[in-house]
């Protein structure tokens, strides 16, 4: 099974259409897609507009390959589950997002051993074919541990605890109103 997700906030029909075309030629491989805000229907995908957290985790666990927009939630979840991930970043010039941060995210995350970045339908089809053909040989080495970098954890811990003894601000502090 292939799990596809474009998040829940914005449509991303360019990716879903490309995947729909691929699924039409590969009917033996079911594709479950979280289609989010897409208004279109896709003949060859099992489309669910919004997957709840439990279903999301279960589907991620079962998937052979994950195909997604370059959203950090998917990238982190796929890495935690040790799944191969094909990313297609959204582009602002095509009206797919408010800005091009997904291009930057995809570029930075392409260093992860489980990630392949594609920018068009053809590249998506070729990558899917290659990944499925290679089968178990391509199981990613990467399986992320459940926590952030120790330095970040320690910084937050210090912020929470070492300053906890300080008195709280007197009365209504108006500093926040001046932004």
């Amino acid at each position, binding site marked *: 099974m292939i799990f596809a997700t474009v998040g829940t906030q914005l449509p991303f029909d360019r990716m879903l259409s490309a995947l729909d075309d691929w699924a039409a030629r590969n009917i033996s491989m079911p594709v479950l897609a979280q289609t989010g805000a897409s208004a279109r229907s896709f003949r060859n995908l099992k489309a669910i507009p919004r997957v709840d957290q439990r279903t999301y985790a279960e589907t991620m666990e079962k998937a052979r390959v994950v195909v997604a927009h370059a959203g950090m*939630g998917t990238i982190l979840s796929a890495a935690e589950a040790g799944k191969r991930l094909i990313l297609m970043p959204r582009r602002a010039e095509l009206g797919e997002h408010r800005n091009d*941060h997904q291009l930057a995210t995809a570029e930075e995350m392409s260093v992860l051993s489980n990630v392949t970045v594609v920018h068009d339908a053809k590249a998506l089809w070729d990558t899917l074919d290659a990944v499925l053909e290679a089968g178990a040989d391509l199981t990613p080495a990467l399986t992320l541990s459940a926590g952030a970098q120790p330095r970040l954890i*320690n910084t937050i811990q210090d912020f929470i605890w070492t300053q*906890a003894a300080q008195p709280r601000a007197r009365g209504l*502090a108006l500093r*926040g109103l001046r932004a």
Partner: protein
Amino acid sequence: MSGNHNTPRRPRILAVASGGGHWVQMMRLRPAFEGADVHYATVDASAAVMVVPAPVYIYPDANKDTKLKLVLAAARMFWIVLSVRPDVVISTGASGGFLAIRFAKLFGARTMFIDSIANARELSVSARLAKGVADRVLSQWSGVAQATGTEFAGAVL
């Protein structure tokens, strides 16, 4: 760590994260909350199963392009902050985190905004807004931190 701090009670944390990546990143910060009294605020009620038995408050998802929802989110967030009365607010974004920090500052809370790792080239709008209000604003990219006068202290990945 919780054994040798010197406050009379555990600090109460309000951890605020919108859906998708913001929430997943917050989940990766959970080891930092060990021993504290954590209350979560997020946009997706189905996320609550992941942090049982911690209390979870739901607010409407909004951004600068959905003005009416932003007003509703602000009203809801004010109520959440009033109910929880946190000592500390930690947010991984997005707009809801900024709102929580803004309101919690009125009650003297200490506040930290951690910009999403998705913002590899520039700060998010919420992080830029938080810069004027939060005690600490962190970017997960050292280059972005340097260019924007925010702090770098590692990343969730």
